[in-house]
Structure formats: C-alpha cells, structure tokens
C-alpha cells in the first residue's frame, strides 16, 4: 500500500554479494526499500540475513554489487560514515556499552549531531554546555519512549534481555536515522510483549518518519507488521513481495519445510 509506484527507493541493493571463502553468504541479492516502508527480511538460520545487515551498515565489506542510499553509493564507506548519513541499527546479539549507564548509551549515539571537541568540552565553552543539555534531554525522552525512563542511571549490562533490546532501539533512534535496521527485535520477548512490539514499531515509523528493515523469526509478527517481505535462503533472494503472496510462495514453503 505504501510501496506505490513512483516512490523513490530509500535503500537499493543491486546484485549485492558477500563471500566468506567458498561460502556465498549473500548471493546476488537485489531489492529496493521505499520511504516509509516496513520491510521484513526472513529466512532459515544461516540464510545470510545478518550478513546483509552487516554489509548495509558497513561492518563487513561487500564482495560485489552496489548499494545505494537515496541514490548515493554506500559501499566502501566506513560504518561511522554510514551511521552519520542516517542508517542506524540494533544487533542480534545485543551490543550495548555495558559498563555505561542507559542514559550515556543513548547520549553517545547523538555523537554525530554534536560538534564540541576536547578543548571546548573540557573548558565548558559554547557550544559544549548547550549540546550537553540538549542531548541529555533527548536521551531522557527516548528512554521514556521505550519505557526505561525511570532507570536512566542504571548500567546497561544490568538490564534484562528484553530491556536491553529496548535500550538498543532507543540508542539507534538517538542517531536520528532515516532508516532503522532491527535485527530480531522480538527475540527473548514473551507473546504479550511480541504483540505490543508490532504496535510499537509501527508507532516509531510514524513518529520519526522512518523506513524500517527488520529481521525476525517470529512469522506471525512479520506477516502482520511488514508491508513487504524478502525471503533469503542460502544467501539467495527466493521471494519478495507482500506478506500474503510470500506466505503462499512455493519456494518459500520449500525453504522452510524442505522439498517434497
């Protein structure tokens, strides 16, 4: 419904490939994600979903193909440059700054939106104090949004698994991204939380005008939430389309249940 004709793709992968020695983790994958879309990425374990996320965020280089963000080439850029352009992510295996407080975690992610260097910071000269105040306020606001408003000074490593996932989302949002990549956001959540998560992600999309890519194993969640879904199997894109079409695609059924 949102993927109407004529919309410009925010993110476009053309024949994206990543090899690890003889293994082709991402094999000639092409797709484009439209502005404001919630785009699901599913597939059996080892299908190359997280590798694809890592290539998009620059954590591992691609072996071939092209990747465009608003028409601009992303490959060969460093992760921090890609983040600064407006692509934020969470991690499947949660990578918070464990010894730091929740507030600091979210403040750190506003790094690219602040300028003050060592000297101005140490001496407290403008714009350092103003920036400090602004990012603190925004961090508090984001923590309240994800429901951690009363635990801002706790160390991130002391949070429960689900709360750590929430904190990761708050941290990613602090980058002020245009595209948000969520790697298994529902992992470790109970059915009730999973249900709320759908509404929460939709709400985030509307509130921050985001485009969201998400990897998720919980099929009902993906089917109910995503505008379009791409299915990866052994690194190859085997299906792409709206949830109803993907659900009935023979190739998808074969990938999940095995042939015959």
């Amino acid at each position, binding site marked *: 419904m949102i993927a109407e004709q004529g919309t410009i793709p925010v993110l476009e992968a053309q024949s994206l490939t990543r090899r690890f020695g003889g293994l082709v983790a991402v094999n000639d994958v092409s797709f484009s994600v439209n502005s404001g879309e919630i785009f699901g990425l599913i597939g059996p374990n080892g299908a190359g979903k997280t590798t694809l996320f890592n290539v998009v965020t620059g954590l591992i280089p691609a072996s071939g193909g092209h990747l465009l963000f608003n028409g601009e080439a992303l490959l060969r850029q460093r992760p921090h440059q890609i983040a600064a352009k407006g692509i934020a992510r969470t*991690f499947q295996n949660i990578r918070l*700054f464990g010894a730091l407080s929740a507030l600091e975690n979210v403040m750190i992610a506003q790094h690219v939106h602040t300028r003050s260097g060592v000297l101005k910071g*140490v001496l407290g000269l403008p714009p350092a104090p103003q920036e400090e105040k602004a990012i603190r306020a925004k961090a508090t606001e984001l923590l309240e949004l994800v429901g951690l408003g009363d635990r801002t000074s706790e160390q991130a490593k002391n949070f429960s698994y689900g709360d750590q996932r929430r904190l990761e989302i708050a941290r990613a949002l602090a980058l002020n991204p245009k595209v948000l990549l969520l790697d298994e956001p529902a992992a470790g959540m109970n059915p009730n939380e999973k249900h709320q998560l759908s509404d929460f992600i939709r709400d985030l999309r509307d509130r921050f005008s985001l485009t969201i890519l998400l990897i998720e194993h919980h099929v009902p969640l993906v089917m109910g939430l995503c505008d379009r879904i791409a299915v990866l199997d052994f690194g190859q894109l085997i299906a792409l389309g709206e949830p109803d079409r993907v659900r009935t695609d023979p190739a998808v059924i074969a990938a999940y249940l095995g042939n015959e």
Partner: protein
Amino acid sequence: MDDFVATYGPLLISMLLGAMLGLSLYLPLMAGQLSLASPGFYALGGYIAAILSTQAFKTDAALFPVPLLLVEMAIAGVVCGVLGVLVGIPALRLSGIYLAIATIAFVEILRILSLNLEITGGAVGIFGIPQPFDSAIEYLWIVLPLLGLSMVFVYRLENIRVGRALSAIREDELAADAMGINPTHYKVLAFTLGAILAGMVGAISAHFLNTWNARQGTFDASIIYLTFVLIGGSRTYLGPVVGGMVFTALPEILRAAGDTPGLPLWLGQLLKDGRLIIFGLLIVLGTIFFPQGLVRPGVLKRRAKGGRTS
C-alpha cells in the same frame, strides 16, 4: 621540618610525577587501548629539555629561568604530540596485546637511538642539566599546577562528548563505529594526549634529576607505569593518580623495610632490589582480585551517596 622536607622533598616530587605518568597511560586506556609508549615520550621530552637547557638556552644566571623551563615543556609537548599522531595512526590499527608489543618496540627504538646518537650523549647521557630552583621541594611550583591541571582535564574529559566516545570505544568498538563514532580518530586522539603529557613530565624530570640518559625510557618503566594504572585503578582518573603516587613511594618504603634488623638476608635483598618482581606479582594478583584496580568509580559514588543521605 626542614630535615623532613630535605629528606622527603625529592620523593614527594617523584610521586607527583609518577601520578602524571600514570595519567599518561590512562588516557589511551580510556579508549580501551593498552599502550606502553609513555616511557618513550617521557624520555623524548626529557632529552628535548636536556639538550635545550644545556645548549640552546645557556645562561649565566645561578638558577635556570623558570619561563624557559615552561618553553621547554611546551616544545616537548608539541614534539611528542606530533610524534604521537605519527606513531598512533599506524600503531592503533593493532589492538590488545599487539598494540602493547608495538608500543614496547617504539620505546625500544627510541632507547637504542638515544644510546647511539651524539646529540643525546650516547650511553653516558647528558649531565649537569641546570636547576631552576634552589631545592627539590620547590619543583612543587611546576609539578603541582601541572598535576592539578591534568587531573581536572581528565576528570572533565570523562564527562564530555569526547570522553563518552572514548568509553564507547572501550566498551564495544564495533558498536561505537555503528553509532557514528570514528574509532581511529578517537584512539589516536587519546594516544596523543597521553604522549603530550608524558613528554611534558619528561621535560620537568630532566631538570629534576639533573642528568638524563637512555635508562629513562625502558621496558621496565613501561611495566612500572602499567602497575600505576592497573593496580591504582583503570576506570577513574583517580586510579592512576593514587597508583602513581603509591607505587613511586613503595620502593623507598620497601628499601627501608629491607633494612629492618633480624630479617633473613634474602628477604632484605628482595625488598631492596626486587621491585620489578614485586610489581610483577602485584600486577598478576591485582588483575585476579581487583580487575578494575583499587580505586573504582563505584566505590567513590557509593561513598558520595552515603555521605549525602547520612
């Protein structure tokens, strides 16, 4: 009182210098980078001061002018800062133990160079470095403000944007990168700040010790400074300051203890000359029992909170 100052003045100055050397190693460690390069920059700063004061800044005055000492410190800071950037950019591509090894190599290269160059006086070193003060204790005029400034600097650094970027890299470099922080930039920055501080401390020490030679920047010194930080505390700026002071004083205390009558001969010898053995043991035991050092941020916070509520 005068006796006390005359006896312990030099030790006090050494302790404060030790605190700053601890801080110079702590700075790269804020970004999680275990660099042992501080003695190299310390030695270099000392040579700069020694050469300048014995050759370029010759005066007839009885005391070496303090402003010239400040100029030497500034030059040492700038030179070590530039060298820090040049060494840091390639070296900080390495991480963990490999960075430690590379920085040991750097210290070793500087040591061999200073042993063989004419300008550094070869193995003999440089003698008769002029004194800016009448007595050792007066070095406090230079050392105390510099220590104060560097402590305030690091304390502030821990609470601002740049310092948070360093902590983020220490906690998880990859995640920091994905959150828009350029790890290389900040690692080199922290390394360079440490280099500048070590260079300035070296410039003071050259005057303070009156003589400067290749024994100032050695692997032994690397291990001693590492003890300052690892045992003192690697998670708050107070750790290396306390560690630097305590572990500079410790060998002197042990030396006195070694003279205690009735002690077995070997124990007396160990206490007097075995400071590297003892420091090595402390590093091993400390990392097992106090992985974050003796002075930890949590301890301080709890104290502060307790004080407020009671």
